[in-house]
């Protein structure tokens, strides 16, 4: 089966007046059609850059200095303006963090939705779509302006617009970050249901492991501009083979016992200005050896998933005594 999305050693720099920042340092990722992938990373990991690179939605000061990203075998960086517009419109659907920022505040909802449906849309199609995303009283919603809707309703509209043309890939960047906890699950359930129905692949960018565990088949963990671990989410979260994945699972509150002290990851995430010498996590890693500081680790197959770590086997073994599984 040919992969839908292939990012190969993608390297992207941001050129700013204050200096150059390396946002992606050789990021490699594949995604099969119809699968759901959780892309996990903290700020500075490059996950947003990778997510936006899929639709070539990078800021004007971004430069691709190496590697490539292809969808259906065609590089998004080689497309001309028409090509990329067509790709974004027909094959991709994006859902961003803030629904209010994604909607035009001066245009009624109905009109915006009809734009996303395209030229062949009839009036009823708008209502059908709004109903499909779980909104009631669709006539009222269609006549409303974005600021008249609640955050949850607005996000549903955005989701509707993203799936309107049955994309092959939906990218959601922290879609529930600005929403209340009690409707977060509703929104994610909706996204997953629509994804299944459309047969689309799905990438969920999130910093929360538990959310990814519940909704995504695969997980890719990012650190320092690279994908450091990529595999089936149940496997990765039960038995992480990368020290960062493991440290992240240990550091987050939620699974500890009453009175137990959490151990945060010492140090701070790196800000790269060029390729990292050695492993970018090494300064904070408790498995780090000399080799780790000197030589960049390459992606290898360990325990059924892809890991970028010299010491992956040792990390995998150390997990046997820890229960990360859902209790």
């Amino acid at each position, binding site marked *: 089966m040919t992969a839908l999305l292939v990012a190969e050693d993608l390297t992207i720099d941001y050129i700013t007046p204050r200096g150059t920042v390396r946002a992606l340092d050789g990021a490699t990722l594949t995604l099969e059609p119809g699968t759901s992938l959780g892309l996990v990373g*903290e*700020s500075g990991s490059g996950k947003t850059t990778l997510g936006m690179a899929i639709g070539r939605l990078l800021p004007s000061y971004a430069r691709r200095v190496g590697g490539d990203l292809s969808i259906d075998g065609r590089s998004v960086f080689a497309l001309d303006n028409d090509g990329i517009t067509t790709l974004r419109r027909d094959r991709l659907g994006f859902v961003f963090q803030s629904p209010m920022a994604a909607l035009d505040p001066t245009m009624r909802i109905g009109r915006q939705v009809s734009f996303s449906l395209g030229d062949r849309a009839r009036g009823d199609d708008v209502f059908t779509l709004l109903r499909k995303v779980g909104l009631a009283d669709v006539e009222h919603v269609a006549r409303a302006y974005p600021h008249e809707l*609640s955050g*949850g309703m607005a996000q549903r509209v955005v989701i509707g617009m993203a799936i309107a043309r049955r994309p092959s890939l939906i990218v959601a960047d922290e879609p529930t970050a600005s929403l*209340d*906890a*009690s*409707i*977060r*699950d509703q929104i994610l359930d909706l996204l997953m249901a629509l994804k299944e129905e459309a047969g689309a692949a799905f990438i969920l960018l999130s*910093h*929360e492991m*538990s*959310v990814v565990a*519940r909704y995504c088949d695969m997980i890719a963990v990012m650190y320092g501009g690279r994908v450091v671990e990529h595999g089936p989410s149940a496997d990765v979260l039960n038995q992480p083979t990368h020290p960062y994945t493991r*440290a*992240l699972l240990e*550091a*987050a*509150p*939620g*699974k*500890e*016992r*009453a009175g137990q*002290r*959490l*151990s*945060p*990851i010492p140090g*701070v*995430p790196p800000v790269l200005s060029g390729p990292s010498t050695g492993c970018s996590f090494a300064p904070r890693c408790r498995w780090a050896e000399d080799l780790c500081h000197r030589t960049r680790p390459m992606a290898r197959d360990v325990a059924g998933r892809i890991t970028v770590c010299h010491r992956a086997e040792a990390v995998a073994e150390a997990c046997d005594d820890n229960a990360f599984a*859902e*209790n």
Partner: protein
Amino acid sequence: MTTPIIDARDVAVDYTSGPPWDQRVTNAIKTVTISIAPGETLGLIGESGSGKTTLGRLFLGLLAPSAGSVQFDGEPIGPRRKPPRGQLSIVLQQPEWALNPRLRVATSVAEPLSILGRMSAAERLAEVRRSLELVGLDASFAARYPHELSGGQRQRVSIARALITEPRFIVFDEAVSALDVSVQTQVLNLIKDLQSEHNFAALFISHDLAATRYVSHRMAVMYAGELMEVGPADLFYAKPQHPYSRALSVSISLKDADVFKLKGTVADVSPVGCPLNLRCPWSIDRCRADKPVLRGLGEGLTACHRAEEVAAA
């Protein structure tokens, strides 16, 4: 029985908004009675519209209650009767705007002391250095500007500012919500350690149950301006006794997912009976007719008719 540092009795807060001919009244807080003992951290969880932020502002004397009273160390407080300066502090959410971008870190951290006006500039600077060290930042940070710091570092500076007058009560309003997970845990540990060393009382407001129960001694859950459950943090590690508390902990434990999932949105507040009865999967006729009051059950207080069953599920 020592005087609680904060004692709120039957407080309610109404906001009026709109032009004089079309006034609209919003009940931010319907009725809350709770107290915080000296040296205790009370975790307050709720979603948007629950009234938790308003309660925090009330405890700092920034708002006046429309009903009931708030006392700080036995004395009533409010916007016209401010509590003694330097005894209370706040640490807020957005690291981006927590510090004045035009002022150096040292100036921001020293401000509460400048307002008290009791020290010389040199003495203040020494206190700033001491405070920065307490939060794990070395003295070189004093001369920097906020934009040179990361989110986690700015939050630490906010905490340093909050501590500098050795207050007796600090409100942490979503203080870690905007931070990355690994930085969040660093700051949570910092708050725990500082509290056990300096013994201030604290109100930790958050929507995140996991983070809150980690730092708190006692927890309170709010919904639509009222308390749903109050109890020791251990209770929230084991099994909370209110369906809403259980629903909030769904994100932590998959087992509760189907049994406690809420329907609808925060806007579906029921005006009669239990405010949650439109959304709660455990709701029965009695919940619509009869408003549950906060009552003792086991280790804590809960406002639910079916709490015993919930506790067993």
